[in-house]
């Protein structure tokens, strides 16, 4: 299974990022191969619509699930349309969350928040 997690830095020792849309990086982790790669989140520096763009990046990475502390409604719409399940992270440790996912201990994220609307323009 391939999963995506928003992370602060390009290292397995780093922490889960509290923001989905503006996370600096995503960890794309293969639970079978126990192997991961880090991709940059271009949405982090965009003027607006960060959730949508970050979601597009996650969808394009061909993952089966997204582990995140929170997610906005626009991003959720994109992710769910791709059939990707969204789970709520339990703490900010990457390994703890991967373990919990493998054991089936993570809950589906239900509190999708309204958009940040911090888009460019007037």
């Amino acid at each position, binding site marked *: 299974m391939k999963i995506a997690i928003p992370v602060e830095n390009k290292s397995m020792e780093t922490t889960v990022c509290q923001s989905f849309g503006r996370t600096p990086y995503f960890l794309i982790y293969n639970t079978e191969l126990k192997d991961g790669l880090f991709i940059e989140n271009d949405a982090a520096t965009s003027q607006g619509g960060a959730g949508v763009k970050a979601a597009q990046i996650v969808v394009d990475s061909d993952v089966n699930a997204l582990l995140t502390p929170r997610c906005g409604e626009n991003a959720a719409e994109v992710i769910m349309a791709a059939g990707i399940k969204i789970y709520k992270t339990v703490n900010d440790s990457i390994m703890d969350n991967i373990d919990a996912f493998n054991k089936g201990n993570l809950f589906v994220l239900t509190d999708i928040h*309204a958009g940040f609307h*911090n*888009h460019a323009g*007037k």
Partner: protein
Amino acid sequence: MKQLLILSGKGGTGKTTIASAFIKLSNAKAYADCDVDAPNLHLIMDQPFKPVKTDYYGLPKAEINTGLCTKCDQCRQNCRFDAIKAGTHYTVDYYACEGCGVCEAICPAKAVSLKPAIAGKLMLYTGDSVFSTATLKMGSGTSGMLVAEVKKQMKRAASDTELAIIDGSPGIGCPVIASLSGADMVLIVAEPSVSGISDMKRIVETAEKFQMKMAVCVNKFDTNIENTKEIELFCEKYKLPFTGRIPFDPEAIKAINNALSIIDIDCAAGKAVKEVFNKTIKILST
């Protein structure tokens, strides 16, 4: 971190006056001024050290290289924001340009390019507490984005803090919507005038879309008791917690004009705001 946002709909109701009182009463270690169009909180909150300033880049702006321009008019015709003017030379109206890139993409002569544009300045004061604020360059758009940066800056610098007080902006548009996102509770400061009531209803409607805790208080209540009662009835009808009334107080104006918060001096408004504060914080903590 719990975020308490103070909004009003109408301008001039007392958001900043009340926000500064709340900050002092709660001893909040983090606060922000999200009224980036017309920030005022820094005038009351004394800061011992200079802030760290960061340039805020808004939308890039289009620029036309007149040397390459063939005046084919494609850019002007396709600009949805009326930002391109034809004259002796083709020029871009800096303030109208939204940085969409249509002109750059459509120009057959590669004469148009988008250049980064500074749209404001972020300021972060750190010391005993964290104070995040910003000013938007006048005439700019992207105030919503700047508001998000103000909050992000505050959260990054004060991640361990329990309570953050956020002074919001008037209106219901972009900067207000951006400040509502991520807030745990909004306190609406209403003014007992017909205009104030109308504006309060619109901000309540806007905030409701975010499904967060909401409370209303009335400032300068004694300028119109009838209207104050109307606001209280409205709150009762729509089950909005009413956290109190603050009187119109000339001593309060004096305090603010001397860059003091209303609880720094002994005045009726200061006493009343303490009650409003206690009731509001109780709702936030439950």
